[in-house]
């Protein structure tokens, strides 16, 4: 039992943090809100040069050849820094699908897409037919889309995109028009069910990791504000009503974090309980981020309710991601369902 990251993993996170402090400032995030697709191509290429985008792409295709345990810390950091780029969709969801895609179609997909992902030339979006709209569809070069239980790979040129106005300007969603065909089919039937479940589980873990980072940032912003803002002649952070709100929110984040890390490990090891672990992770992370957002707003008071203050850049991301790929209650329901499926003790 050794539940910790190694030096290399921690160093990679430190590099991403240093990068984001320069390249992903609140002003840069606001820039993304008003940009064509909600994120930045140049920043995507820079992230690819660091090895972040192609982290899960094998080395022979120009990637780092690393796994989900290496990725999870970077996703958390992406949440903390408010990075708008589609890292979860590309590195955690899309690339593993391409790596496991069977047959000639799989070979063709890998040959066509893995190198461009690794060098920042391509981004992937993933959409299920149950979703009202596909996150990141506008900027994606390759879309992995489910219909009738089958999974298809559709290049951007073959889809029509209808953007849907959405609360978070740096996380766009769109309706996608497309026609399934034998040429787009990646996997079908029973085999597809496993692939789709894998996508759901990696999404629960990956979005959960981002949410932990978002929650961490929200609490840090609120704690900082509580130290600076004075009322009744002293910092509002000296009042217990404020302290207790923040302590409770911090506890939710602190205990969500190892659950998310464990999910990453179980998924990368193919643990038979990985689905249970992924749902536990998303349940904990969604709730932690929701509580952190609510607490951070209350601690900020009216200034946090303004468009001008940066708080909403993270708060709205927390709301959107908390619901994405199943909210906390949906994942708790799945946890109980999976536990009851075990024979009784």
């Amino acid at each position, binding site marked *: *039992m050794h*539940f910790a990251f190694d030096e290399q993993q921690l160093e990679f996170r430190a590099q991403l943090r240093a990068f984001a402090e320069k390249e992903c400032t609140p002003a840069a995030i606001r820039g993304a809100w008003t940009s064509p697709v909600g994120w930045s191509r140049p920043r995507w290429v820079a992230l690819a040069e660091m090895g972040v985008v192609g982290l899960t792409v094998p080395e022979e295709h120009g990637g780092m050849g690393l796994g989900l345990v290496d990725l999870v810390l970077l996703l958390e950091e992406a949440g903390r820094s408010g990075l708008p780029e589609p890292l979860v969709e590309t590195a955690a969801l899309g690339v593993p699908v391409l790596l496991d895609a069977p047959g000639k179609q799989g070979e063709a997909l890998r040959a066509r897409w893995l190198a461009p992902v690794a060098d920042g030339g391509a981004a992937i979006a993933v959409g299920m037919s149950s979703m009202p709209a596909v996150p990141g569809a506008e900027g994606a070069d390759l879309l992995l889309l489910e219909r009738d239980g089958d999974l298809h790979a559709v290049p951007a040129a073959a889809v029509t995109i209808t953007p849907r106005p959405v609360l978070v300007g740096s996380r766009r969603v769109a309706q996608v028009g497309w026609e399934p065909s034998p040429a787009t089919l990646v996997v079908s039937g029973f085999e597809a069910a496993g692939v789709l479940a894998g996508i759901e589980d990696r999404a629960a873990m990956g979005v959960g990791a981002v949410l932990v980072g978002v929650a961490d940032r929200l609490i840090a912003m609120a704690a900082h504000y509580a130290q600076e803002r004075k009322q009744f002649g002293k*910092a509002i952070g000296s009042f*217990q009503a404020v*302290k*207790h709100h923040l*302590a409770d929110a911090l506890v939710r984040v602190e205990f969500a974090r190892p659950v998310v890390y464990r999910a990453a*490990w179980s998924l990368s090891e193919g643990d038979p309980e990985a689905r249970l672990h992924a749902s536990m992770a998303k349940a904990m992370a969604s709730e932690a981020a929701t509580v952190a957002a609510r607490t951070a707003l209350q601690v900020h008071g009216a200034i946090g309710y303004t468009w001008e203050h940066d708080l909403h850049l993270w708060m709205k991301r927390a709301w959107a991601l908390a619901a994405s790929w199943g909210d906390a209650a949906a994942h708790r329901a799945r946890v109980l369902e999976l*536990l009851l499926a075990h024979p*009784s003790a």
Partner: protein
Amino acid sequence: MDLRFTSEQERFRAEVRSWLEANVPSPSRGTGPLPSLDTAAGFEAHREWERTMFDARWSVVSWPEEYGGRGAGLFEWLIFEEEYYRAGAPTRVGQNGIFLLAPTLFEFGSPEQKARYLPAMASGEEIWCQGWSEPDAGSDLAAIRSRAERSTAGGTGGTGGTGGGTGGTGGTGGTWVLNGQKTWCSRGAFADWIFGLFRSDPEAERHRGLTYFLVKMDSPGVTVRPIAQLDGETGFAEVFFEDVEVPAAQVLGAVGEGWKVAMATAGSERGLSLRSPARYTEAAARLVELYRRRAATEPAGAARRADAVARAVIDAEAYRLHTYWTATRVARGGGVGPEASMNKLFWSETDLAIHTTALELLGDEAEMLGDDGRPPPWLDGFLFALAGPIYAGTNEIQRNVVAERVLGLPRS
């Protein structure tokens, strides 16, 4: 990162499991369950169980062998705890000593003190209770007024002067005289020894001038008044000290440094050692089985609690994983600081949530006592869990600690 136990750890688990299966008091062997440990007979029965474990060297696996342990690592201790709860083994009557005082003794005790107290603690021969709170010092522990004064030479009682000890000068010779009152001493009704804080320098700033004493409960001048708890049994007690003479060898840590020593004990109480995750994961597993049974007989009622059941199970699992996370850090030489307060908040709320949910699932059956007049396990566990947010420093105090020392907010 590797979240598998090693094959040595799995062998250790198998060994623990087979010993517990053969030895835990059980109805099938006519040896259990033991009577409540908060009764005189139950206390002695639990003491015997400690002795049985000690003889097989299972009572304190993580301690060095010279004190009766196995020199096992932190993860082996966690494995032991998982198996202990899984086996439904008796509550540790020695827990205040083993889990709270012992880590403090290892850190601050002299070699003589360790040799004197640890083996007898491990065997159950000497059961310890805790003497911190006073009628006017609960959350505000530094407000304690019970005092310790150096005895005049030859000391045969009397309160010898008013100056008290002077901080830091220590020395192992001489005698102290204790006066005052401690309360809410868990296991106090039947314990053999008490550890506690006394004011040794009334002139010093209130966190200074405190000294940590180890006192025999049958010392002349000690009076115990048992207090019945919510379940009607005397789980804790008031302890009165009237000119109680204590040799200086029974001071733990330096004179005047009692607050620092006590905070180490509090860290153990809030952090890793008192509440191993097994208590909660085991209760959570039983909660799932309770839900399964109720879903078969009362599907509508069970469905209303499904979300709470899942939440309780996930929180228990989160506590387990967080403990592994912390244990990995500690095993590599890291420490546990104010984050112990986050642990305490989380385990106490989780424990309460698990047991509240169980009682809700049981509905009208929840309040029924057993034929022996005792609360059955879920009700008993609920009553116990209710104390969690109060003892070891109330959760309000923990939130202050987290806000001030983890988040850096200014003191009130």
